[in-house]
């Protein structure tokens, strides 16, 4: 090849999985054979180069990768984390106006004659060295409570699912901005050339669950180049869309067809000189390698029983939340910088006790299992795990309140998330809400602050990861966001 062309090829193109071109293939192939090779070689100090557009980390990263267990539809903080013992005295009394202070509420309950207070039916106990309160619905999480930071004061402005989930995922309530994973892919790239930088896993939900829609924009790239959008690993059909060869075509037949293709593309490159052709040659090689690396990723047959047991009995069924948590760990091992596992079904407007009894155990065991598994591998220190949804739920009952039943509407003014590993202090409870879990009384954390903190853990200053679009430099946190120092190690 013309050395100048080769130069152009190496220097002028940045490809889907970070920087890669013809000739880098062997290094990437090594990562398939030994994923730790690459996971371990990611830079650990400021000054080391990320694989994306950022010329350097803004400060030493504590986390090399993020796993966000996204609890879509908004779990009730009141029944899981935010213990309010005094509420028992307020059973079926009206929410005091001194608490509500005229704040807007959704039109699902604004027409209700009363807003009767519904104390949680569930028992709470203290756990761990700091005595954090957890509901009886989270017995497994209780065993790792010293590893996590419970944040009780997250808040947002959106009061409906679509805008709220779009907001926390992209920094704007209106569709069109890149999602967090896309920003990370864009800014930091990935050390693994054979897997996408941003992977999305959808968890199967029980039929009849109270759940909302998701939208591909939640893992979309917005105005960033589309190669940064999240790639959904699927539990039905091909794990990555169109990955498998068609019936009647085996890997060897495909390989020989691709050899012919590469030869012809190479000849065209010689006559046309457009380095885009060289890029396409490389993409085909990568596609072929993905046909091996992805099946290897999802093959959990070599996982020992004691590891599988950490995630609970459903772990071997593809598509369950437990299985997805295990895959998230396997992706983390392979250096994938951002994995988001979606668990839907928390939209408990009615019959909350019955519904949450079904869903909380599913979330509890696998989430705790993931923490334990990462910890025993020494990966928790540089893997940031986040657990939470788009808003919280109201202290007052939506619909009829009885002794043993209630529902809860959307509540954006405060909700609970937890974080662990990757630069976050374990064993702390951050922020406090009032006696009704209705207002924040200490250390508010806006979702922009949360996102700024996540980027901070990755060594990125959220104000400096920008992309110019339509004449403006956009960023994940819009024009807001402060790193929550109190959460950091």
């Amino acid at each position: 090849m013309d050395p100048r062309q080769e130069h152009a090829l190496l220097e002028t193109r940045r490809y889907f999985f970070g920087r890669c071109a013809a000739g880098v293939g062997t290094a990437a192939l090594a990562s398939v054979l030994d994923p730790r090779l690459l996971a371990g070689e990611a830079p650990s100090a400021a000054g080391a180069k990320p694989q994306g557009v950022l010329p350097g980390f803004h400060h030493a990263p504590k986390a090399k990768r993020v796993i966000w267990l996204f609890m879509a539809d908004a779990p009730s903080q009141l029944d899981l984390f935010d213990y309010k013992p005094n509420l028992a005295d307020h059973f079926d009394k009206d929410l005091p106006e001194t608490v509500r202070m005229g704040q807007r509420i959704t039109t699902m309950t604004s027409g209700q004659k009363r807003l009767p207070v519904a104390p949680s039916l569930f028992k709470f106990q203290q756990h761990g060295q700091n005595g954090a309160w957890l509901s009886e619905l989270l017995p497994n999480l209780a065993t790792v409570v010293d590893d996590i930071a419970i944040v009780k004061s997250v808040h947002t402005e959106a009061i409906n699912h679509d805008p709220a989930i779009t907001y926390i995922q992209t920094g704007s309530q209106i569709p069109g901005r890149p999602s967090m994973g896309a920003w990370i892919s864009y800014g930091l790239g990935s050390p693994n050339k054979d897997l996408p930088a941003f992977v999305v896993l959808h968890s199967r939900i029980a039929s009849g669950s109270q759940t909302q829609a998701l939208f591909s924009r939640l893992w979309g790239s917005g105005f960033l180049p589309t190669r940064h959008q999240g790639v959904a690993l699927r539990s039905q059909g091909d794990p990555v869309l169109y990955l498998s060869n068609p019936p009647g075509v085996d890997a060897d037949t495909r390989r020989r067809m691709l050899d012919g293709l590469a030869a012809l593309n190479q000849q065209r490159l010689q006559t046309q000189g457009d380095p885009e052709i060289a890029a396409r040659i490389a993409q085909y090689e990568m596609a072929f390698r993905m046909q091996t690396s992805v099946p290897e990723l999802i093959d959990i047959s070599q996982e020992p029983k004691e590891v599988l047991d950490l995630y609970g009995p459903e772990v071997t069924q593809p598509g369950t939340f437990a299985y997805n948590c295990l895959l998230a760990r396997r992706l983390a091992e392979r250096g994938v910088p951002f994995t988001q596992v979606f668990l839907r079904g928390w939209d408990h407007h009615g019959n909350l006790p019955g519904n949450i009894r079904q869903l909380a155990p599913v979330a509890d065991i696998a989430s705790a299992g993931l923490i334990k598994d990462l910890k025993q591998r020494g990966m928790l220190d540089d893997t940031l795990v986040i657990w939470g949804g788009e808003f919280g739920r109201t202290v007052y009952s939506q619909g009829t309140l009885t002794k043993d039943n209630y529902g809860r509407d959307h509540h954006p003014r405060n909700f609970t998330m937890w974080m662990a590993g990757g630069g976050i202090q374990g064993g702390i409870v951050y922020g406090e809400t009032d006696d009704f879990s209705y207002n924040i009384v200490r250390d508010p954390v806006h979702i922009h602050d949360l996102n700024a903190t996540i980027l901070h853990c990755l060594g990125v200053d959220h104000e400096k990861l920008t992309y110019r679009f339509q004449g403006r430099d956009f960023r994940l946190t819009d024009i807001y966001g402060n790193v929550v120092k109190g959460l950091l190690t």
Partner: protein
Amino acid sequence: MCARLGLCAGILFASILSLGLVRADDRVVFNRDIRPILSDNCYKCHGPDEKERQAGLRLDVQGVATGKLESGSTAVVPGKSAESALVARITSPDPDQRMPPTTTGKHLTARQIDLFRRWIDQGAAWQGHWSFIAPKRPELPAVKDAAWERNPIDRFILARLEAEGLKPMPPADKVTLVRRVTSDLTGLPPMPAEVDAFLADDSPEAYESLVDRLLRSPRYGEQMARYWLDLARYGDTHGLHLDNERYMWKYREWVIGAFNNNKPFDQFTVEQLAGDLLPNATLDQRIATGFVRCNVSTSEGGSIDEEVRVRYVVDRTETMATVFLGLTLGCAVCHDHKFDPVTQKEFYSLYAFYNSAADPAMDGNIAATPPVARVPSADDEAKLKALDEQIAAARQKIVDALAKVEYTEPEPTASVAAAEPKEHVWIDDAAPPSAQLQGNSPWEFVGKPEHPVFCGEKATRRQAQGLSQHFFTGAAPGLKIGEGDKLFAYVYLDPKNPPKEIMLQFNDGAWEHRAYWGEDVIPWGNGGSPSRLPLGALPKAGEWVRLEVEAAKLGLAPGAVLNGWAFTQHDGTVYWDKAGVVTRTPQDGQGFESLVAWEAYEKAQTKSTAPQNVRDAINVEPAKRSDEHKKAIRDYFLERVYATTRPVFDPLHKEIETLTKQRADADAAIPVTLVMGDVPSPRETFVLIRGAYDKPGDKVTAGVPAAFPPLPKDAPLNRLGMAQWLVDPSHPLTARVTVNRFWQQFFGRGIVKTSEDFGAQGQWPTHPELLDWLAREFVESGWNVKRLLKLIVTSAAYRQSSRVTPELFERDPENALVARGPRFRMDAEMVRDAALFTSGLLVEKIGGKSVKPYQPAGIWEAVGFVGSNTRDFKREDGESLYRRSMYTFWKRTAPPPSLMAFDAPSRENCVARRARTNTPLQALVLMNDEQYVEASRHMARRMMLEGGSSPAQRLTYGFRLATARRPEPMELDVLNKVFADQLAHYQGHKEEAAKLLSVGESKIADPLDPAEHAAYTMLANLILNLDEAVTKE
């Protein structure tokens, strides 16, 4: 707060320099050289935004920048850089003094500082922002190589190249050219016969007549519409929350037709923005306003209407600005624009044009959220007309028949009898006609002697533990309820196993009428009300008892019609028999024998099914009735009531009923499409403080920003006036922005690269004079789109070879200078359409509803809402699999994945310029998507049947189908080798061949050798995967 908005890095300017786009002459030009630096580094604090302004200094206005500041110093002293505070501050050694402040993260390069110095020394001439100054048609620049020019475009391109010391590429060969222009103008590659015809035409007009032919092709309109639909954010679903289906495809058809008919672009604009407001607006002009309605909408429970409605208005305003003004107004939603001269107040003045939209905040999750237009086809119209005529004919028959009847009142005895209430049995031994029997367990009919039966042959029995019932709905004809009617049923309670409670329920459209006997354990309805009325203790067990309840007490008013009846019980064994109503009202098939009797009955009814004029007539004393009264009473009686004549009229009524239903069905099948409309009295508009829907500030009226020419004289102050303003020949932006996007379509990059942003933060045009020349040419030609495109594609610039040398690539990787022909990967739709077309599968049909071709399972389901009507993807069959991709159903929260892989947008918002990436996911689509494998199979068939007899001929033919050219010997050599290899493989693995040949729905009837066909399929797959196959060169 917005103080930190302008996080601008100096990427823009640096990139212009590195591209070598700024000419290295001595003269510093404010707009080209200085404004971008100011905009990026200074305007945030020293620009248009009054709230953020520091030290009273604004550098966007000459008078302020050259005047004395609060501090006493002067920022810019023209001609004297040494005395200018600006230069002192940007070069200050003291970091606290130096501008821009370090906290902004910005700093100026030595070259930028030098530019400031030279600009001031040269006199510091300010210019308004270039794109806000109306274009004038420039003189054509002089060039050395005058022979290269084919039309005026080339003078501008060549002058620039010569200034840069570059030479254009030689013309592309004819094969490349015919493929390039055919793809560009029709979205499909040329077929070998078309290529041959062009090659054979040696006339000097060959190329021009090719272009003319392509511009006349209906495919042209489809190709052009595709780009426009990205701008319009066209989708087949609402886009938010449930993301249900929406009817918008008639608008898509409109866009295709507009391009094919070469509708002048000014009309095209006005009709889409304000077609509904045009005098005597046609249906077509109303359909066009779908452009405004294409924004995403929601109906999410709990939403606050005004918050949502404001978002729609903002989206429509921003979309208009992006598409026609090339301006990003989003910033001004919350505050004065920091870079462009659009204040927040001015934004809301533009917003006011859209603020009176009539569509609701909640789309209702229905496909036809009003306002909508019905769009009947000629066939539809004909069908409706025919039905209307048949209905009229049937009505005439009634009129004729009425005229013939002679009525005589019978003896009075009969009439008295008819007026007495009678028992009408509705249920005995069987449910009424058409009833759908349902229940916790099926109806059980039992007979004598084992079981008690009250009358007839059978009774029904139900044995229950807890709540249980049997019931029916849908009985037709229904049971008519009149004044004072009583409903009854016979019941027998088993003395050995009595129930706790029995209940009768009646359905008149809703199950809200219940009577019960015994304990109050069945919880339905509200106790004590007509929805759960207590009628005392259980009847005596062991004998038949008649239960009776006044219909009125159950909320069943005269005129009510029952279609359903339920027998309900809690525990026990219960038998039911004969049930019905005691009524004066004739039930179906019955009539009155006497007009006098019927009148007496009718008078006693507080409500009636008789029309009001008949009721009114009856209430007039007989002596005072007019002829009109008498005729109304007589006709109605004969037609609807009189037992003797009903056999004449009933069939005619039935006929009209059937025809009316057919008409309603035909009417419902007529497409509807969302259109724009305004509420009758315009809404007031206020500045929304920081964009918050619930924080209105100053009131504003509709108007246009002061930086632009005013609204044309006599323009109405509504959307129509705004649209007329946009296409006024004096408008500085609309024509420039439009021609720039057309240029981008052909060259892959606009003359202004940021085709969505012509503001201060947008890029400086590479060829400003060419842009202005094209804009003026466009306007002066009467906004003639085809003429403009013909000019572009017949230029020498467009016809260059797209080969690139490493030197040229390094100097100009984006081909901004047009020193070579365009070469880039085709858009998603073109890639798929080309594969369908070359394989012979493409079904060409313009317009129509969207279709659902192949898509991997689970794409919609993974995100879908349980109640959404687009949750379950159901692939369609036959033709729908092979339509052009622009007709693929666009679910905006989960768009078609094979198109998304090639950078198709989600259509949630306006897109003026698609990304163009190169990823392994694209390779996987082309290699493995069922659609492409099936296309390969059919392309293989064409190669075998049309290509010739030898593998070399067939492979050459396949290669030509996809690339238009013949393979070079070296290339054919590769193809031959791979083919031989694949053939050997499939000859040894016949079962594998069979599997490969079964991919996709379509069958191939021709007798082809399976191993050979499979091998050619793999070769077709290879050819469709070639970089060249998916690239316009």
